[in-house]
């Protein structure tokens, strides 16, 4: 499915399968992301985008298939070695997933303190990271006191604190207003510039995917339907891709649902 890439592959998914009970969520997913490349994975809600992302960092174990990080098979490692490999990752979660018992400063400092940096190093690096995401004067606030956009950015700062080589973003701008959505996209681009990290972003927001991704892949029905650079993706004639890009209610993505929607509403007597 993936095109041959010139740079060595940083992150590879090989034929991932995953079911929860009898619900198949991933049905043979393969892709590879080159070093320094940014891949955006789009798709309607509830198609297992987050599940896919959690496979890449080893939060969920695939039923079959492999995840290769810099050539190393994630699930061939012991729990201890897996943990070490995860230092290469930084992940931003949907609602931020900040530690609510800690202040903003402590949240960003967390990965640094865990890897034994000196207090002075920690302070300097936390300042750097909060600068990158344009947050000032919130060091001593608790996550509950922040707005959604701020929480998201603290999550970013925490994800890049230990200078990871791979960044994963789970719906970075869901639930934000259009302006904040664009600001978040800008922040992600800046982070990319400064960290030179390999990036995988999950989103259902087409403009973001187009802005952030070097390539866009579409996930539906447990498979990657289509994968292309943004311009080509937008021009695609694939009916499912067209439906998603144009944001229509009717089409192959909503086969069953479309029928229901077209039915006339029952008369109320």
């Amino acid at each position, binding site marked *: 499915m993936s095109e041959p890439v010139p740079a060595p592959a940083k992150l590879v998914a090989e034929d991932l399968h995953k079911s929860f009970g009898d619900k198949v969520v991933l049905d043979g997913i393969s892709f590879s992301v080159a070093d320094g490349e940014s891949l955006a994975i789009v798709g309607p809600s509830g198609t297992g985008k987050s599940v896919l992302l959690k496979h890449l960092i080893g*939060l969920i174990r695939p039923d079959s298939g492999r995840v290769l990080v810099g050539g190393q098979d994630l699930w061939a490692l012991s729990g201890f070695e897996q943990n070490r490999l*995860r230092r290469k990752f930084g992940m931003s*979660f*949907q609602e931020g997933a900040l530690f609510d018992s800690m202040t903003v400063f402590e949240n960003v400092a967390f990965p640094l303190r865990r890897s034994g940096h000196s207090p002075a190093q920690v302070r300097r690096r936390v300042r750097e990271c909060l600068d990158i995401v344009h947050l000032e004067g919130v060091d001593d606030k608790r996550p509950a006191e922040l707005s959604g956009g701020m929480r998201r950015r603290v999550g970013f700062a925490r994800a890049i604190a230990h200078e990871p080589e791979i960044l994963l973003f789970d719906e970075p701008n869901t639930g934000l207003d259009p302006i904040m959505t664009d600001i978040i996209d800008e922040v992600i681009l800046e982070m990319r510039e400064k960290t030179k990290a390999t990036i995988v972003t999950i989103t259902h927001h087409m403009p973001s995917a187009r802005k952030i991704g070097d390539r866009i892949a579409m996930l539906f029905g447990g498979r990657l339907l289509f994968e292309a650079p943004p311009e080509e993706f937008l021009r695609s004639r694939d009916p499912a891709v067209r439906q998603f890009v144009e944001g229509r209610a009717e089409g192959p993505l909503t086969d069953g649902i479309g029928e229901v929607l077209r039915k006339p509403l029952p008369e109320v007597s």
Partner: protein
Amino acid sequence: MRLFEVLGGLVLRVLEQIGRFFQMLGRTAVWAARPPYDVPELLRQMVRVGFDSIPVVFLTTLFTGMVMALQTYNGFERFHAQGWVGSVVALSLTRELSPVLTALMVTGRVGSAMAAELGTMRVTEQIDALTSLATEPVQYLIVPRVAASVAMMPLLVLMGDAVGMYGGYLVAVQLLDANPVTYVDNSFKYLTVHDDILSGLIKAAVFGLVFSLIACVRGYDTRGGAEGVGRSTTQAVVSGSLTVLLTDFFLTKLLF
């Protein structure tokens, strides 16, 4: 047929929980042995489990000792054995009542909090975030809580022993006009450090392990939002308390 289905399902769930308990016990032991050792977090948890539980344990054991003295006096008076009230209070407190009641109170107070805290962290993806930051959640969250509980329970029970015996003394001497010298003398006459006090403290440590690990696992395995957190918290207290009572019987039977 339906009955067998329900019963079978119940048995399977219980077996699954037991298996999960021992699996997590193994993981906790393995991760406890590995660096980094988070001493500040361990101390914080020891304060939460131990120091903060002092008032509850104090009142529980005080009144238990008092009511023990009242009841046994009432009974023993019928065959003129009032002199032995002190011994009975001391033995039953150190061997049985102080460890079990302390464990039940701490399960309710601390176990529920542990399950709710870890459960909330699970449903808000904070546990996933820990993993993503190369921090093993079992090591960071469960190890300090279980270690603190195992360490603090015997201390709480030791305090409970003393408080309960004092409660018994108060009632016997002040309320029932027992002779203070004979009461104290009888209290310690048959009480042995090794068989009675130590056996109670060993029980306490095991109870600490049991209730804290059950609470942590229930919280860790939480599914399904706010409702799931509520369910985990209830389960932590219910299965924690029941397991403490069950363990108590077998410990008493096997060891002492």
